[in-house]
């Protein structure tokens, strides 16, 4: 599927734009954004950590929505349901990647800033749980035989999605070691000169994540279609053999 040249061109164009936006974001974050007063250059990791954390809380919602769509279409329209399932796989895997980067960059920041790599703070713990939940989602997909996997995984996805709002609200509800919210009504706010770096990086990494999800989605669709073709061939072959 999707072998049409237009889509392919769009993908290349998207990739080129993504790289351009990321380069601008890098320049903004590393060279143009003002140095933070107390933390110095260490604060620049913020532009990567926060963008990945934000997107890592958005992609699981795509996974949840796709899973619910799968459950809705499962009996009504199986072909559409397969598409939704492919989207769910793609977004779950990219979620694991983004949340993983969030955890890793947070630890890189935590060692110099707090003196420890890891602490069992509310935000860190709920983020780690989110990561573990989506890993168990992928494990479930590996473990159960192909026919029922999508349904079982879709159900698990709904259970996992409960952690997303908890993770999001954790710094509001429990004020522990993780820095308090920066944006929003209760946030401390940032220097207006830091905004371009945040926004360019957010846009760039969002485009990158969307591209990864799209590519993974196409791969999964091809796998599904190949599976269907193989099943069809097997049925045809069994019809031709004399009984």
């Amino acid at each position: 599927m999707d072998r049409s040249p237009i889509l392919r061109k769009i993908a290349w164009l998207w990739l080129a734009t993504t790289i351009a936006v990321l380069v601008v974001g890098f320049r903004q974050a590393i060279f143009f954004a003002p140095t933070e007063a107390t933390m110095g250059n260490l604060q620049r990791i913020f532009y990567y950590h926060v963008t990945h954390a934000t997107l890592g809380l958005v992609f699981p919602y795509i996974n949840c929505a796709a899973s619910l769509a799968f459950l809705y279409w499962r009996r009504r329209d199986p072909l559409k349901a397969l598409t939704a399932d492919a989207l769910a796989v793609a977004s779950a895997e990219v979620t694991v990647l983004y949340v993983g980067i969030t955890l890793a960059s947070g630890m890189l920041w935590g060692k110099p800033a707090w003196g420890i790599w890891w602490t069992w703070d509310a935000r860190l713990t709920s983020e780690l749980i989110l990561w573990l939940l989506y890993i168990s989602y992928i494990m479930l997909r590996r473990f159960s035989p192909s026919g029922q996997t999508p349904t079982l995984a879709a159900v698990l996805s709904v259970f996992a999605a409960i952690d997303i709002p908890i993770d999001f609200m954790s710094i509001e509800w429990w004020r522990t070691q993780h820095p308090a919210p920066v944006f929003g009504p209760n946030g401390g706010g940032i220097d207006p000169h830091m905004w371009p770096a945040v926004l360019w990086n957010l846009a760039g990494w969002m485009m990158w994540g969307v591209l990864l999800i799209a590519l993974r989605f196409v791969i999964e669709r091809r796998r599904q279609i190949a599976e269907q073709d193989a099943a069809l061939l097997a049925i045809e072959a069994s019809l031709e053999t004399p009984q």
Partner: protein
Amino acid sequence: MKYFGYVLEHLRKDLRLEWRSRDAINGMLFFVLLVVVVFSIAFDPAGYPTVTRQISGGILWVGLLFASMTALNQSWAREQRNQVLEAQRMAPSPASALFLGKALANMIFVLIVEAVLAPIFVVFFNLHVLGNAWLLALILPLGTWALVVNGTFFAALGLRARNRELLLPLILLPLSLPSLLMMVQATTGVLTSDLDHIQIRTWITQLAGFDVIYTTICILFFETALNAE
């Protein structure tokens, strides 16, 4: 009212099956006993009463979590013999009644284990409770339900999976982590009386919220998980 009739019927069936074999309860009891012995050897609780009080809540719940996992893996296996599960899928009663009956039965098994275990635990760990002991009567059932409701659900979900003995802990442990945190904090707070009223009440309320949320989702999605094909 009819719905509760179905739930009770399933519950009665599970209790009778367990009464005849006593596999699950005996297995869990021995398992938790072993865990308690292993931990008492590892930490020498008689020597350090304060440390013991601080860690015993965690040890109790981790032991119960592992023990209930061993039983939960088995709890659907008896339904698979003679295609009983297929018959139940075709039965006119709602699937969630089957789930609730099974979860309640598992809950009763774990509560029995807790009741037998509690005195042994107190003796081995040389405990005496400093806080409001009656709060444990609230924390233990709420915590047990939090473990059992998701455990029963995902044991059913893993029924048709390859190596399901491994799959259940892989899914159940991450899901149970928040509830485990809440029950351990509440239990330790009661045992050591380090936490004040409001903090303990917050943990218990959160635990109850966890129970309500996951019970609702389990009931809503059980039919899908059972009939997945």
